[in-house]
């Protein structure tokens, strides 16, 4: 059992994620970053938002094979981090504002999806 886990709201599916993120933007939250973890063959995403130095976290489990939704339509600044995870974890995000197609950092020669 892990101690000191960070507080996070669980999100069930992609549509709910987009709705919640939209709501957070309207509440005046700032997009800080997003963390991708490997978990149970799938990926655990932790979205981190910030308002008045208080963090708000969303946890969203992406099932194996599922294409996660991109939030770059809502927060443009999310595009870099989502492109990064396309590179490092071999994921494919749906609806990216600028899609580097998995070649943001890596070239065809470098190791594929090194963190996966």
């Amino acid at each position, binding site marked *: 059992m892990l101690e000191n886990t960070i507080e996070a709201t669980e999100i069930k599916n992609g549509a709910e994620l987009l709705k919640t993120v939209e709501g957070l933007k309207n509440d005046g939250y700032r997009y800080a970053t997003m963390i991708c973890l490997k978990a149970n063959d799938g990926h655990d995403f932790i979205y981190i938002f910030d308002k008045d130095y208080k963090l708000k976290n969303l946890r969203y489990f992406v099932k194996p094979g599922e294409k996660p939704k991109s939030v770059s339509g809502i927060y443009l600044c999310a595009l870099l981090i989502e492109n990064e995870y396309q590179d490092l974890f071999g994921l494919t995000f749906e609806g990216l504002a600028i899609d580097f197609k998995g070649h943001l*950092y*890596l*070239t*065809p*020669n*470098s*190791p594929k999806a*090194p963190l996966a």
Partner: protein
Amino acid sequence: MSLAKSPWIIHVNCNSCNGCDIEVVACLTPLYDAERFGVLNIGTPKQADIMVVTGSINYKNVNVLKNIYNQIPDPKVVLAVGACASTGGIFHDCYNVIGGVDQIIPVDAYVPGCCPRPEAILDGVVAALSILESKSQGKIKGKEVKLKGNEVPSNA
């Protein structure tokens, strides 16, 4: 003696953490003033004599490095500054790091340290000067490094 009095350097940052880069730039600033030896930081490889490389090589910048090396007219000298450029340093077994600069292009002198002091870099430039001189007398040409897609040496 014609080369040793006017070495123009081109600074190439490959995979460096900025530590060595700012020390290379610091060499040109008033306290160290490399221009006393005629050193100029020239932006274009076609006018450079000494190539100062900081940082290790990764899969994306390997072609940039080869390109710049091939564009420098002979005689030329490559100076690897810092632990990363010499051997890969602390990052030598990262997945995206090929290794030191000498895996890709021939290196003539190395400067140790993480990060090297500006004095050490000046020492390196002075060492590079004598190599440059002997290269120009012996008419030694730098060998052309082939560019073929993104290929990397097999031993990397």
